[in-house]
């Protein structure tokens, strides 16, 4: 049967198992929206801004592991998705972005609402396609989803001119796809894995350093199994939180700029660093020349470009993290005597770490009156459901969440790590809630970031998405203010928000419910009320205005040069 391109697009989405898309109509996608009007299988959610729609698709992808899908019209619709695409690209999130384009004969003519979105997004997409013939559309969609979800995942953009949406052809979706130029290495090399286990078992001071790759590969179970088998200390990056349960004794929690003292000390002293799906970001390594100076480094990653990009690596293993970890477990199990001897040999190392933990645990000064943000985070953990999904914006609240929430399951923290995108939290929560209507979804924001996509309150209310929005309000752009306090002589240039916003009234204006706590003893009750309310909620906490995120490795310093109290 012949169909038009717009309908073919929707048929392709159905074939890929897409049941929810985020999108915003416009002139060059009106044909797609006309087809959507009678499409029962795909739920379309209308955000109030395309950036938010893109973050929502990203949030859905992070929460579920599926490919997130977003639709935007040409020109400004397309450019509004760019921040969302770059956010997903930096954190390797599988997404397909469908943008309308002016009709093929007009491309290049500076037509109304025309931009070269392929050109604009080239550096922040894994790949992109301009569909020039409706006959290619189904194959391109198959390729787009294949590329987005395999290897190191990432966003793929499909630019679809209006005339291609109107043109008709037979619809046939390819069952499989083979790309001669794209064959990611999935299976870890057996010899390398053998060597890795033998190197690891010969070490005295091992640490596992785990990134978001372990979660993307659905390898949290295997990672935990291997680390339990070897009984080794584990630290994770911001994006790796939840890959290894933080409530286990072997967890060193997060490392890096605002990581724990003991994780960073362990990194500085280790003789065997096993990097799992992590990319040695500068926020993790601190000063490169003094990073893990005594360590042999094993690096497991599906993306060869991540290996030896920033640091030297003694043993690279390119492959899917899950595949490699399964094989490492088998290899370790094949040498029970060596494993037993290894566990014995690392006892002094582990007690050294325990010493660091006792000396400088993560902590803050509790205050009887002023609300401490760390206390709010701890209470949120205590009072929320065990499988709660937490999203954040970027800044102090993000770091407090990472430090004090205690993540024990993968895909329960959704946060913009690589790009550090303010305005991410609320729309990402929207995406997670759309995917899991029954689960509790909380977004923890600062008063700066939440204003960047506050219009999505409307989307939450309209679509019955009961996201709980927590605002840690210090009336500052807190992280920049903290840097200004520490490194710029308290010259608070443009970081004070000055205008106090009444978020309770704001919630009311959108038809949601608002709560506010101004004193420590109101925190618990506010959280209880907020979480108990059926629909979308804002919980505003007036926190200690000049509270800092500590400890901290100043930019450019070594990991073992942490500022503990300032």
């Amino acid at each position, binding site marked *: 049967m012949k169909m038009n391109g717009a309908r073919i697009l929707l048929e392709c989405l159905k074939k890929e198992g897409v049941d929810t898309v985020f999108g915003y109509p416009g002139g060059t996608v009106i044909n797609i929206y006309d087809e959507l009007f009678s499409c029962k299988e795909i739920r379309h959610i209308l955000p109030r801004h395309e950036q938010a729609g893109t973050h929502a698709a990203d949030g859905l992808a992070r929460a579920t592991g599926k490919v997130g899908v977003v639709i935007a019209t040409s020109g400004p619709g397309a450019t509004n998705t760019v921040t969302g695409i770059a956010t997903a690209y930096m954190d390797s999130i599988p997404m397909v972005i469908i943008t309308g384009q002016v009709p093929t004969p007009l491309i290049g003519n500076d037509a109304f609402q025309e931009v070269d979105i*392929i*050109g604009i997004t080239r550096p922040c997409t894994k790949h992109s396609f301009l569909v*020039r013939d409706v006959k290619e559309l189904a194959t391109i969609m198959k390729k787009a989803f294949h590329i987005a979800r395999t290897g190191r995942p990432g966003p793929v953009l499909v630019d679809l001119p209006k005339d291609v949406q109107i043109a008709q052809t037979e619809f046939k979706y390819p069952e499989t796809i083979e790309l001669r130029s*794209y064959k990611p290495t999935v299976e870890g090399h057996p010899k390398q894995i053998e060597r890795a286990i033998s190197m690891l078992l010969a070490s005295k001071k091992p640490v596992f350093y785990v990134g978001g790759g372990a979660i993307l590969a659905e390898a949290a179970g295997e990672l935990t199994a291997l680390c339990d088998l070897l009984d080794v200390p584990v630290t994770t990056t911001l994006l790796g939180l939840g890959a290894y349960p933080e409530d286990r004794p072997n967890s060193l929690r997060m490392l890096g700029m605002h990581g724990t003292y003991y994780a960073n000390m362990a990194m500085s002293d280790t003789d065997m660093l096993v990097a799992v799906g992590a990319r040695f970001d500068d926020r993790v390594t601190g000063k490169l020349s003094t990073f893990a100076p005594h360590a042999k480094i094993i690096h497991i990653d599906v993306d060869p*470009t991540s290996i030896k990009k920033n640091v030297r690596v003694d043993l690279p293993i390119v492959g899917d993290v899950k595949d490699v970890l399964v094989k490492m477990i088998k290899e370790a199990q094949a040498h029970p005597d060596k494993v037993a001897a290894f566990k014995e040999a690392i006892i002094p190392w582990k007690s050294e770490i325990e010493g660091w933990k006792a000396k400088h645990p993560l902590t803050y000064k509790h205050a009887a009156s002023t609300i401490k943000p760390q206390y709010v985070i701890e209470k949120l953990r205590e009072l929320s459901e065990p499988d709660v999904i937490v999203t954040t914006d970027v800044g102090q609240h993000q770091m407090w969440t990472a430090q004090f929430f205690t993540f024990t399951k993968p895909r329960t923290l959704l946060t913009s790590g690589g790009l550090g995108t303010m305005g991410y939290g609320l729309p990402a929560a929207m995406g997670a809630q759309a995917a899991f209507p029954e689960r509790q979804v909380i977004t923890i924001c600062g008063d700066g970031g939440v204003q960047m996509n506050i219009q999505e309150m409307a989307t939450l209310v309209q679509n019955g998405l009961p996201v709980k929005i927590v605002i840690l309000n210090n009336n500052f752009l807190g992280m920049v203010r903290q840097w200004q306090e520490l490194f710029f002589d308290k010259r608070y240039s443009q970081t004070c928000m000055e205008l106090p916003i009444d978020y309770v009234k704001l919630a009311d204006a959108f038809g949601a419910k608002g709560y506010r706590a101004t004193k420590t003893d109101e925190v618990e009750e506010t959280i209880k009320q907020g979480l108990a309310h059926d629909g979308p909620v804002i919980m505003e906490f007036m926190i200690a205005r000049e509270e800092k995120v500590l400890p901290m490795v100043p930019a450019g310093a070594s990991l073992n040069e942490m500022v503990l109290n300032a």
Partner: protein
Amino acid sequence: MKHTISVLVENEFGVLARVSSLFSGRGFNIDSLSVAPTNDETISRITLETRGDEQILEQINKQLNKLIDVIKVIDFTDGSGIERELALVKVTAEDESRAEVLRIVDIFRAKIIDVTARSYTIETTGAPAKINAILELLRPLGLKELVRTGPVAIGRGSKGWKG
């Protein structure tokens, strides 16, 4: 160190832009670049010259391979390839220097492809070092214009790049 790299790519819309923006976006150098379809018309071959230490070259190689449209990357720096380049040179040739230009052209087995009363235009091909050598000799006589293709390279031996 200078490297000559061949990149075999899908002959598709926008591929050259992907390759060149990878270099500019990541701060890698491109000294020269040439591109044309191959005997298999679905494949184009980009030859480029770049510089960097071992670590940078490893990144260039990996990043190129990471591009979805890149089929194969070949680095010829180990001497496994033959490089040739073509240059067109417009040189001042008046009075006594006319004979000198002709002598140089003859020695380098180059060709005069255009002539006026005051100039010669020369076509010369060879390894980049040979081009550099003839230019050294012509430069004092007055170079008016120089066009170089940048090298193209092919592997030695009986096998094609597919093996």
